[in-house]
């Protein structure tokens, strides 16, 4: 058993566990006792693999980014999760969890969403299976990710605004948990990242692990080795990162880079750089690193990117960081926006704002010419076009005044 995977009691080192009120206990306990058995049944795997292939469009390409490589002086590959159906890695998890929910006999699905990608991916699989779907989304995120709200509605989901707290991802998660407490019997909660009480972080990581499973054979085809020197991924809760790291955690030569959102700067008071600003505590039923006051009140984070605007990280990431296995960088709003434009202009790819944070650290790292770097391109940027347009206008305005 890897020292980086969950142990029998649901912990990653000192992180993880299930700190939940009794009202959630029977559902979580049932899930904990059955998830491994259910998801490794032949019939489940057959259905899961078939949907990943024919519906999601997997395997997602591992693309050698020539011009980006030239710019940064390393061999940079992009794992194209943006090309999945619905435009991000999130659907790998929702396909798995909807198949699980069916086997658990659940008739109603709830989810939280930040950027709306997980909400769309959940609404999609619910439409596919003909199951009722309710998505909680912070009021602020509803405003800044309007295209995804429209997509969820098109797909037949009900989008319920989370009006409490900072009205972003943390509060949408609280509302989803409260809904589950009120509806324990017929409802399954599809969490969108590697967060929450055990077994969620492990279960979501397993569904996302297809990312690194493919990376290994794809890199072998390109480079004659399964092992890159670096894997870079952005971390909100950490599901795309967990999937990209999964099959490399016990390969010490592969350096693991996690990128957090610094918002307006780590020390600006408006940031979501959890591992730097946070300390150990409990959030959404898990012991992990989180941003909090001395009194244990959870601090409202900030990032321009709704998907990274979360005051915690998954417990496995907390463990990877604390044990030194993963190295953390952060990128500000401005740096992420500049990276969006760079990827557009160099590679013809418009990434999600979340994803762009991962690209923003290429400039801060030192590479050797032969280093192989895989950046997990977790999602596409269509949902962020309003933000990008504003940025472009501002940029061209600045250029004019420069002249």
């Amino acid at each position: 058993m890897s020292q980086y995977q969950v142990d029998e009691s649901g912990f990653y080192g000192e992180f993880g566990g299930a700190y939940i009120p009794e009202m959630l206990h029977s559902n979580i306990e049932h899930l904990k006792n059955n998830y491994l058995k259910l998801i490794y049944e032949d019939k489940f795997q057959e259905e899961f693999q078939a949907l990943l292939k024919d519906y999601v469009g997997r395997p997602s390409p591992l693309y050698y980014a020539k011009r980006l490589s030239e710019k940064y002086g390393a061999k940079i590959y992009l794992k194209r999760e943006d090309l999945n159906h619905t435009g991000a890695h999130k659907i790998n998890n929702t396909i798995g969890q909807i198949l699980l929910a069916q086997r658990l006999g659940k008739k109603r699905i709830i989810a939280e969403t930040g950027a709306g990608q997980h909400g769309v991916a959940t609404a999609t699989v619910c439409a596919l299976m003909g199951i009722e779907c309710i998505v909680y989304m912070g009021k602020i995120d509803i405003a800044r990710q309007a295209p995804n709200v429209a997509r969820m509605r098109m797909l037949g989901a009900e989008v319920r605004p989370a009006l409490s707290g900072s009205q972003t991802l943390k509060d949408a998660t609280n509302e989803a948990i409260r809904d589950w407490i009120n509806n324990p019997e017929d409802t399954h909660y599809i969490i969108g990242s590697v967060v929450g009480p055990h077994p969620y972080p492990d279960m979501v990581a397993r569904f996302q692990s297809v990312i690194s499973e493919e990376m290994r054979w794809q890199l072998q085809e390109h480079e004659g080795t399964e092992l890159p020197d670096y894997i870079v991924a952005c971390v909100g809760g950490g599901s795309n990162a967990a999937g990209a790291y999964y099959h490399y955690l016990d390969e010490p030569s592969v350096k693991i880079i996690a990128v957090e959102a610094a918002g307006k700067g780590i020390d600006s008071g408006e940031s979501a750089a959890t591992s730097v600003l946070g300390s150990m505590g409990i959030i959404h039923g898990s012991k992990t690193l989180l941003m909090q006051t001395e009194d244990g009140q959870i601090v409202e984070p900030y990032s321009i990117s709704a998907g990274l605007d979360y005051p915690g990280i998954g417990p496995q990431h907390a463990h990877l960081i604390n044990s030194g296995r993963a190295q953390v960088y952060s990128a500000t709003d401005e740096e992420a926006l500049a990276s969006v434009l760079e990827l557009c202009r160099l590679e013809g790819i418009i990434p999600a704002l979340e994803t762009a944070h991962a690209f923003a650290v290429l400039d801060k790292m030192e590479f050797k010419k032969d280093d192989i770097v895989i950046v997990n391109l977790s999602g596409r940027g269509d949902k962020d076009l309003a933000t990008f347009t504003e940025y472009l206008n501002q940029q061209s305005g600045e250029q004019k005044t420069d002249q």
Partner: protein
Amino acid sequence: MENRLTSLFNDKSSDILNVYFTAGHPALEDTATIIQYLSDAGVDLIEVGVPYSDPMADGETIQRSSSIALKNGMTLQTLFRQIKTARAEVSLPLILMGYYNQMLQYGIERFLQDCQESGVDGLIIPDLPMGIYERDYQELFDQYNVKMTFLITPETTEDRIRQADALSSGFIYMVSKSSITGSASDISDSQQAYFERIAAMDLKSPRLIGFGIHDKSTYQTACANSHGAIIGSAFIRALEGDDSLENKVKGFIGKIR
């Protein structure tokens, strides 16, 4: 000194009224005053809610009172000061209900010490698992003479109910139905069946029924099936009315019994 919670349950085994409110709400310094008025009104036990930014198990009312209390500047140090002030005037048992992270950051031992010094008799920490309490904290609770209460719900298995009974040193908190706090419907047949099922288990701990107890009728039903009832959200909503604090507290309790 004998723990006041223990004394209460030794002296009284029915119609125990436990009232919950959020510390620091409506105004920061209302805490001790509300405790005083509740004591004057004859309630048996007071559960002081420690306001939390992310109260997972709570409905709109307690979320709102908590965020107002935090905006008012409520902190744990302020709370213990207020409890001390109240304790100088009242002799009924006081317990705190808060989330595990608050105590974890404050330091569990420091928290228990401050409980003992300020006159807190027991704690409810809904998101602290029983196993972790038993392994890490039970001895400390005993050392500081602070009683612990665990929750059970209609879904809790018999084994777990027995475990909660064994580990609870205050009382057992019977969550009346599968829900967050604050609902205001009548007691259903399935709730009644659950109450009777638990009553027949012959548990060692006293049982108080809470969640959704909001008026005289639901209070009486809860009391008929257990040692007493806990009223929270309905009382907080009453505190948000226009009258003087004293009239609001006494008026509400007067309507319950």
